[in-house]
């Protein structure tokens, strides 16, 4: 029962943070030229609007008799919708309202993003991001699993065998992880796989055997040639969006395509490793140090003196603690963890939110997509922090009862 009260209290505390984040993005959006704001909020101007979003137009365009310029009704209407002619607090209220209801604007027709990916032209930003989010989530879950299964045992071992080879190895991982950014590690891995393995196997269709092995670790799906009949399956529309859930592995399994499910997992191995590496580096030290502290506490000495075998002392008595530490530090560094996705998804050409963020930064910026994906990533961080706190409260009764 107390747990529910804790969760509800934690959820209420999230509201000011989300509104605060939106206030920051509102401040940034306000610095944009009005034209850019209108396009990113309402999409490209409709075909029957000759002047687009320009504030004034020659009156002859509207079929009016007088000479000179008249105000553009489309401009007037959309400026009113955003409250741009009202005081700042009204604009802020409208912006927060739109952001909270996922009205994040539209993708521009002329932006670099829509020329890189024609599927998203003129679509609502929230819709585009909802296509891509499941892929990013699956990748995140995958790399979180790698982080947990590497950092906890390795950190514990490094503490138990202090200053022995295991400890030194964990130190090497820790230091190199801090100093190797994702783009260096990712590109090195790609280069190694291209140079080292060369063209071999790809998929199961013989027509794509001529292509390089590289592609198994590159892109979210095999190329179109690799499917039966050389066509994308109907559930994998143009090799981008999967139905019904959007999670690639799950959807492939639902449609009974075992080899595609396996393939989609193989493609996530390298990216997940690159994302996990930096976080593991940060975690190892904390796990090791906290384990060293716990090993000196009284209850561990008691367990030893009453004859509990050493491996049980380490795994059960002392080791339980490192899960708490891992979860806490993971929560604190989750923003950095999420920041790795744009880079890694771009390097490995994965069809997730991160790569869409990078597309949005191509030459004419797509501000709707830029701010939309930033908000989405921030939501991920905020909700991951809630999950971390709840897990922590579950693992440590002092928190929820205190």
């Amino acid at each position, binding site marked *: 029962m107390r747990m529910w009260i804790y969760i509800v209290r934690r959820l209420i505390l999230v509201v*000011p*943070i989300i509104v*605060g*984040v939106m*206030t*920051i*993005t509102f401040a*940034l*959006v306000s*610095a*944009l*030229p009005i034209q850019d704001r209108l396009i990113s909020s309402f999409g490209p101007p409709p075909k029957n609007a000759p002047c687009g979003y320009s504030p004034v137009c020659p009156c002859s365009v509207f079929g009016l008799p007088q000479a000179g310029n008249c105000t553009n009704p489309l401009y007037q209407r959309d400026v009113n919708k955003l409250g741009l002619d009202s005081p700042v607090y009204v604009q802020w209220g409208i912006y927060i309202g739109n952001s909270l209801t996922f009205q994040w604007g539209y993708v521009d027709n002329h932006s*670099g993003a829509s*020329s*890189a990916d024609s599927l998203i032209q003129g679509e609502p930003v929230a819709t585009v991001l909802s296509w891509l989010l499941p892929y990013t989530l699956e990748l995140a879950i995958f790399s979180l699993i790698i982080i947990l299964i590497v950092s906890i045992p390795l950190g514990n071992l490094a503490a138990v065998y202090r200053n022995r080879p295991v400890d030194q190895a964990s130190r090497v991982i820790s*230091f*190199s992880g*801090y*100093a*190797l*950014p*994702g*783009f*260096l590690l990712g*590109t*090195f891995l790609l*280069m190694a796989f*291209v*140079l080292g393995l060369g063209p071999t196997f790809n998929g199961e269709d013989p027509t794509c055997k001529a292509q*390089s092995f*590289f*592609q198994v670790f*590159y*892109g979210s799906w095999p*190329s179109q040639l690799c499917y039966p009949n050389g066509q994308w399956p109907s559930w994998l529309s143009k090799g981008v969006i999967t139905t019904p859930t959007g999670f690639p592995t799950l959807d492939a399994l639902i449609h009974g395509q075992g080899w595609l499910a396996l393939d989609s997992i193989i493609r996530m191995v390298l990216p997940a490793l690159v994302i996990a590496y930096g976080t593991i580096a940060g975690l190892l030290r904390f796990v090791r*140090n906290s384990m060293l*502290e716990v090993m000196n506490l009284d209850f561990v000495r008691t367990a030893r003196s009453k004859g509990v075998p050493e491996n049980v002392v380490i795994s059960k008595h002392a080791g339980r603690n490192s899960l708490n530490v891992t979860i806490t530090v993971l929560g604190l560094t989750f*923003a*950095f963890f*999420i*920041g790795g996705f*744009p*880079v890694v998804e*771009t390097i490995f*050409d994965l069809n997730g939110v991160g790569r869409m963020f*990078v597309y949005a*930064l*191509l*030459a004419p*910026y797509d*501000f709707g997509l*830029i*701010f939309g*994906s*930033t908000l989405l*990533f*921030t939501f991920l*961080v*905020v909700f991951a*922090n809630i999950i971390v706190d709840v897990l922590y409260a579950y693992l440590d009764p002092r928190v929820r009862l205190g």
Partner: protein
Amino acid sequence: MTEAPAPLAEPAEAVPVARRGRRPNPRIAQMKRTWYFLRRNTLAMVGIVILVIFILIAIYALFQPIPWTQLQQECASSGLYPPVNGCLCTYSSGTVSPGPNCYQTPSGYPSDIAPTIDFSHGTLGPLPLGSITTAPSNPTFYNIYAGLLRGSDWSLGVSVAIVGTGALIGLLVGAISGFFGGWVDEALMRIVDIFLSIPQILFVIIVIAVLVALPVFQPFGMRVALLIVGFVIVWWPFYARIVRGQVLVVREQKYVEAAKASGAGGGRLVLRHIIPNSVYPIFVQMSLDVGTIPLLLGTLVYLGFPVFPTIYFPEWGSMAALSVYSGAGASTFTDALLTCQFGTCVIPWWQFLFPGLMLFLYAISVNFLADGLRDALDPRLRR
């Protein structure tokens, strides 16, 4: 239980008036103690040695044939973005001409030259680390060795400027928040929470992407200032949180109470007693961040985001990113991305390896130092 009667007057020898002037300053003593533990830490000393080498390289680079003021003019005259030439090349009246580290490619000669110390290039001189083409359509290239040398100024200078400013702001905010407590603390820490929930790389990008269009930020110097401002906006909350935690501890110490009892005001307490005693923990964070920021800069450039006035800017991250462009035979990141989308491009290894190695060595040396500092400053870890 009876209380011992208080002595009417303290014995004269209890107040060492005469020795007071010679008593060592406790902060100097703390520094000496830190240095003592640091000196015993092999990794930290390795880090310091590498770092000193980097600083010497940066100082040497400052006095190279093209000092940075001239670089500023060159880059300014090249029309900012998109670049016409690498800022290592001399640029005058609309054409690129060979400069001290920039050469016209002889006809029939490959523009990407692998590392060689062969002098047979004639006027080209030795290319110990190979070369990078400035643009596929542009038959000039520059010496990676010279670029790395020049890049050391930028990578070190920009990261120190960002970390210094960020730490200063964080120190003030954290000290105020921790010292005054109550609603001030609550409000400031919620703001810090908000800033920390936006993923840092994305935050830097949206700040710069929005502000870069403003006319204020068009001149070359202001572009660099914008880069620093963008990072500082994102970075100060980390320091604020660390300092606040430390101030909460320091605030309860006896000497602060004593100062308060002798009538010190809030400003004096914060500036003279609280801040000087809470700065040590942020030294560790600062030294870590000085190493992280060039990596993040490299990441941003790699993503094709114009943090620098041109992508051919002599900065380590930019050079590593440039290798991908030249591997794709592209002059813009869009082209590079779309060409490389099908995995057809091979990156010339030397163009990627050497700048990457510089980034790695710099970051790891700083990390060694930070790790040693943490051990030296935290007695619990010193076992």
